[in-house]
């Protein structure tokens, strides 16, 4: 980079040392570009004059700026002409729900999916929820029967749904509710209101009240007010609600605090007479009520529970195949490979879909309409599942690799996992000597250790620096041997 800079400098000095004629033309051209109308006729100007002109050119933007400012001011004098909302009143309007939030729309329309691979990719996206979920018919029926029964019986109740992430809990519940909404519109079921809160979307558990009120009424109030309105609505007979409410609480474990008042209230309202609140709670842990919740909350939660099992490889295969219906851009064997790999690790449908999308992207780089084969899937799997640590060690600098080796041999020597930098350094010196590597200073070695600590190959104690820094190896020694041996 130094040479490059020098070149630049050289070039500049060259242009400066040129005779005045060239400079004159240079300036002239520059001026012409800036104000082409005024000085169009004068082609040859003496250097002195040109200097003046450049001065003027310097001045004009300032003038323009002042002018622009004036124009700007004129354009922005709404105080007299039209009443524009002040921020405070805007906030008020937002709180009352008069103004709805909007996102800026695109300037251009979206392109339609042209190639089959692109269409397959858009259908494989996690956010694309199919109209009926494959392999969850039994759970769908259970939830549907529960909700339908409660709506027909005109009484409240609770249900607890659990399962590992990516097994279709929320998708199933929302599709059941969509079905109920269409049935209610047709008049087969009583009408109801639907409220949906997610524990992770709340800054604080008590904001749940605010969210519920916002979805029921449309106004934003403080949580104290929200709680009192809700309590009056659910407990007092005079202010009884007209429609039954279905309340979906996602991520229940986040809503639990030490006092557990929010979750108690949410589960206590359905037990009140003359209200009809149906609560569906979703969480990951199977035994959350027994483990985390208080006795009295567990008693109110009841025993209506449903567990979503992890998907098997057959089910995952069916899910992906359903999504790809209509396109033949995927080799069935490739889909099966993805399903088997994912089902053996977690049974998470999102992961399977992501891997398929990645494989489609890899295939797309080879051409618009190639079929996704096993090799593409293998590449995607290698990128998404296999170990990045070995590759990270392989790409370390030679000094860093020696440091890792030194830590390992120090651990083997002492038999204790935790090592001290001074001992590691002593080991490093001998390893360097054996390999014919130039001896490095202590500070350089320390910098290598901190680099390895930053990418978490080593765990480094931040408190004590220098020679008594404590170091723990964060990768398994086998990984290091494996990575260094193959070189």
């Amino acid at each position: 980079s130094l040479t490059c800079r020098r070149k630049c400098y050289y070039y500049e000095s060259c242009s400066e040392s040129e005779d005045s004629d060239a400079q004159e033309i240079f300036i002239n051209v520059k001026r012409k570009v800036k104000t082409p109308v005024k000085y169009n006729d004068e082609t040859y100007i003496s250097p002195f004059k040109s200097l003046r002109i450049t001065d003027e050119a310097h001045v004009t933007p300032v003038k323009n700026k002042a002018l622009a400012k004036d124009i700007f001011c004129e354009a922005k004098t709404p105080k007299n002409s039209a009443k524009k909302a002040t921020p405070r009143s805007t906030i008020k309007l937002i709180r009352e729900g008069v103004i709805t939030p909007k996102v800026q729309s695109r300037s251009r329309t979206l392109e339609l999916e042209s190639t089959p691979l692109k269409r397959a990719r858009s259908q494989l996206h996690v956010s694309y929820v199919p109209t009926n979920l494959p392999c969850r018919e039994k759970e769908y029926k259970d939830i549907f029967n529960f909700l339908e029964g409660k709506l027909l019986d005109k009484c409240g109740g609770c249900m607890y749904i659990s399962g590992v992430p990516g097994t279709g809990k929320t998708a199933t519940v929302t599709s059941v509710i969509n079905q109920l909404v269409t049935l209610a519109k047709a008049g087969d079921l009583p009408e109801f209101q639907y409220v949906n809160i997610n524990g992770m979307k709340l800054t604080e558990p008590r904001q749940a009240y605010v969210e519920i009120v916002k979805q029921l009424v449309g106004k934003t109030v403080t949580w104290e007010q929200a709680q009192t309105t809700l309590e009056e609505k659910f407990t007092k007979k005079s202010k009884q609600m007209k429609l039954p409410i279905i309340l979906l609480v996602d991520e229940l474990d986040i809503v639990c605090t030490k006092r557990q008042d929010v979750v108690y209230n949410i589960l206590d309202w359905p037990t009140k007479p003359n209200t009809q609140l149906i609560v569906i709670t979703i969480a990951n842990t199977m035994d959350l009520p027994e483990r985390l919740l208080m006795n009295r909350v567990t008693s109110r939660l009841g025993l209506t529970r449903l567990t979503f099992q992890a998907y098997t490889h057959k089910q995952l295969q069916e899910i992906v195949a359903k999504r790809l219906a209509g396109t033949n851009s995927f080799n069935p064997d490739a889909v099966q490979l993805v399903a088997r790999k994912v089902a053996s690790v977690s049974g998470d449908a999102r992961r399977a879909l992501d891997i398929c999308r990645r494989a489609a992207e890899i295939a797309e780089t080879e051409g618009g309409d190639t079929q996704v084969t096993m090799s593409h899937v293998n590449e995607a799997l290698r990128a998404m599942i296999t170990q990045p640590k070995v590759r990270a060690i392989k790409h370390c600098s030679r000094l860093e690799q020696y440091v890792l080796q030194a830590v390992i041999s120090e651990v083997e020597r002492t038999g204790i996992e935790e090592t001290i930098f001074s001992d590691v350094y002593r080991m490093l010196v001998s390893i360097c000597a054996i390999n014919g590597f130039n001896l490095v200073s202590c500070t350089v070695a320390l910098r290598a250790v901190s680099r390895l600590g930053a990418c978490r190959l080593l765990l480094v104690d931040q408190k004590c620096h220098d020679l008594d820094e404590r170091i723990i190896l964060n990768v398994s020694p086998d990984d290091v041997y494996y990575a260094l041996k193959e070189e």
Partner: protein
Amino acid sequence: RKLFGENDLYQNARRALHSTCPTTMPGRQKELDELKGFILGHVDKGTSGTLYISGPPGTGKTASLNLILEDSKISAEISQVYVNCTSIKSSGSIFSRIAKDLGVKSGGNSEKEYISAVEKHLQRPHKTILLVLDEIDQLESKRQSVLYTIFEWPAIPNSRVILVGIANALDLTDRILPRLQARCELKPQLMHFAPYTKQQLVEIFTSRLRDAGVLDIFSPVALQMLAGKVAAVSGDVRRALDIGRRVVELVDKRRTGDGVLKAVENLAEELESEKKIESVDLKEVVSVLNSVYGTTQSFDDEVDDAFPLQQKIVVCSLLLILNKAKNKDVTVGRLHDVYRRVCSKRNIQVGDH
């Protein structure tokens, strides 16, 4: 579906087994009489008193208090305040809530001013106040000042307060309010709601089902089985009702499923068969009880291989470490080492950390 009358029977049964506050309490007659006697005695004498009700969840504490509050004789003579302590912001804000419910105006908005306003109201001549504090253990504060303040109100001269506290803990007043023991007039009278026995649960079920006119939906043996199991585990009536409802749902679902099949075959035959009511049998109760109280998961043979293979290996290697190693302190790295060795022996690809 609305055409068939029997469906309403199941619906009635489900409705009868609701777990909201009931209007009659079959198994709690003794406690109800005792409560009524306590309150009416104090009303007649014009004195104040304190009562602490304890018992595990689902034994009908709040429900019996609600019944008492709705009693016409009592509500005529007493002004009532019912506060559920979980629904207030913090333990200190209970006073503003009480002041609001009593209709007392205070000079300011601070906690102290509300206390003084309520205490002034208590010193003036007034109707007897029945103050019910549900889930009173939520009012715990630093040095228990809130609870002490409230429990000392009945001892204010000329006051006529009947204070009823409800909580789960048996010895809450002894444990967190030891100073009340020193003064005899402050000491709360204790009342315990024992878990329901099998007989009481059967009584509740029969009375509810009889009121709805669907008593023959449950066979007596099934009812005995259900009540015995719940009484043995917890004695929580909410659980018992929940299980009862689910059993009814199960039978209803199975029957309607059959009905659809029959409809295809012959409508007349179906109507014939619908007339006899299928009662809940021991079999269904046992299956629901097993699914609720059995081991965490009843694996069907089909679902059995749903558990991902790698997770199975991880659990097995953890078991291996816990069985063999002396040091039970297992880190992820140590577990991963064993897991990797197991995987390589079984010729399975190793997952990363």
